[in-house]
């Protein structure tokens, strides 16, 4: 699957900056940003990204709700979740709701693009 543009959603401005830098400079993708679930839903319409990378813990509407809403309107849009917490049953839940995969925080910015590529590869194979 060809990814050109990624929408990055995180309420933490530092993460937005850093992840954007990683995805642009290491991953060589185009990156647009959103700071909340609500913004994300609008941004998908405006920016037409090929992939959404979405933080799970956000104030307002959280990552999971955002995921559900996004998938409802855009069933074919791949969404990857980012989280600091992980429980095996939570991962299963995210996958059931349609997420492509989960990336753990803290991430290695030099390896983040590779992780994303791997997840997308697994996803399109299955």
């Amino acid at each position: 699957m060809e990814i050109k543009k990624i929408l990055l959603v995180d309420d933490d401005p530092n993460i937005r900056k850093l992840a954007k830098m990683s995805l642009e400079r290491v991953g060589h993708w185009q990156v647009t940003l959103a700071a909340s679930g609500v913004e994300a839903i609008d941004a998908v319409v405006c920016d037409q990204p090929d992939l959404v990378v979405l933080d799970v813990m956000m104030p307002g509407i959280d990552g999971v709700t955002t995921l559900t809403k996004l998938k409802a309107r855009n069933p074919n849009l791949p969404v990857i979740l980012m989280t600091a917490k992980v429980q095996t049953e939570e991962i299963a839940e995210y996958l059931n709701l349609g997420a492509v995969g989960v990336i753990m925080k803290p991430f290695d910015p030099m390896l983040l693009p590779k992780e994303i590529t791997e997840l997308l590869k697994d996803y399109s194979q299955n």
Partner: protein
Amino acid sequence: MQHISGDVNFQQRFLSLGADVGTALTCCESLEEMLNRCARALVKHLDLEFARIWVFNEPDKFLVLRASAGLHESLDGEHARIRLGETIVGIIAEKRLPQLTNQLVDDQVFDRNRADEQGPTSFIGHPLLVQDQLVGVIGLFARRTLDEETLHGLEPIAAGIAIGVHRNKIEMQLRERESLFNHFAENMRGVMWITSPGGLKHLYISPAYEHVFGRTVKELLENPLTFLDAVLPEDRPILLRMMGADDPHSKPATDVEYRIRRPDGEVRWLWTRAFPALDENGEVYQICGVTHDITEKKEVEKRVSEFYSMVSHELRTPLTSIRAALGLIEGGMTGVLSDDTSELISIARNESDRLIRLINDILDMRKMEAGKLQLVLLPLEPKSVIVRTLSSLRSFAQENGVELVSVIDDEREFLGDDDRVVQVLTNLISNAIKFSPSGNDVIISVEPAENGRVRFSVIDRGPGIPPQQAHKLFGLFQQLDSSDSRARGGTGLGLAISKAIVERLGGAIGFRSEFGAGSTFWFELNPVAAQPLIENQPLRDLLSEYARLLPLWLKSLAFLLDSARSTGSDFDLNQCLNNVRRIRGSAEPCGFEEVTECMVAIEQALMALLADEGAADDSWRSIDQALTQATNSPLAGGNNT
């Protein structure tokens, strides 16, 4: 002086005396009253000046005057307490032999306090014995001659009084115990209870029940179902299982947590510990136990859990930014760095990595302590686990000038969680790398252990473990040489976590070390039945292999079944099925019928569960029974006969 001789009169007196003493022994409430009546009877029928009864106090070896009838009735005075061996009474007690004297001069056994009185001249003392145990002494004081016949006639009387005193002592002890028990039962917050086997009929329940359950004891004793009614429906099965309700002769498991709903609607968490009472045949005839309300404790646990969850998030968030920023700089994404800058950034990035590992370790440790560590149990191949581990460690080894060598001598599948076993191996190997001098090898081997398990070993030629540090090694935050290994990036929790993981998987972990010559860290896990044992092996060898492996296979199977029971997933059930079939595959051709039958039963129950046929409870019950039977079979080292 009168002289009473062995005539009809004599016999009559002793008959009457016997009758009076008998009455006194059987119908008196208190020891005092009983002994006084005996003493009075003695005085009356034997024409005595006075009679006394001392009771022996075992702990301090004193005879205590408890009854005095006749001319002297006071219990005070110097003769109120006589030490064993002192005065004629003490000597009688010590030697356990009766004495008769008609020349009484000993002042210490009566008050010669009236100047014009002559006092008694004759004395008989008789020990009170119950089966060789000294219980007291009776003393008869007369102003007439006492003869041998009287002394002999006294024997049965003394025996009777001795039994009376002894019985009274035992009754007092019983009453004390009962009152102590009641004191506990009534004041403990926990409910103490006794039920029939199976746990459905309460034989005793302490008053705390009313406080904990909000219902009356009377109601429970009248209607045993009020107990189970209060328990939340989803918690009833495990409770019943623990109580052995489906098999009253099973020795119940030890404890269980469950919820009840009180009449006011409030839901409380309870913890019950049950222990069976066995009769002389080893059969359960009663179940005793204690139940505590642990609602507060559960709430605290929940708050602690939530706290850790929050802390983990709060700590990880800034660390994510720090790590990412440093990573980008180090990776050259912001431009070329001078050597100095590069070095400093590297240090910072390394340390933030270490912080991240530390947080992960702390949370792992926390999950283990809270019993929340989730393991995905699978049969694993030693080779693939080692390959996976080594692939991620090669660069670290290279950096330290250490070569990793693997030796695979056991290819049997073992029970484990892929990620977690890799975590343990990684921990041991990275420790070995850190402590190995450059240019050395670290050997990772897997081989069958003598006890039949699959043993992984990590061998290094590092400095070894100083003997005095050995016992602390698997403790928390233990690092041998803090200056050294902190610089090498350790968190101090690795071994503790590895130990917890290995033990959760039913295995064992340890080390051997020679200070100055290196160390071997090992851990063993249980094999899973893989393929049938080789048919060509002589039967004798086969049996001894079997004896070693079958218990471990059954243990692994039990773990898999527990996992399948809690997840209910088809994947887990299928795993169990495969395993069961393999065990059967080994047992059947060898003619091990009992084990084969058990496996067939488990297989059928698992298939029923997979097909959703019949009641799941029934299927699990048959599985439990069959597994227990297999585990107890002689082949598995149990003692079914």
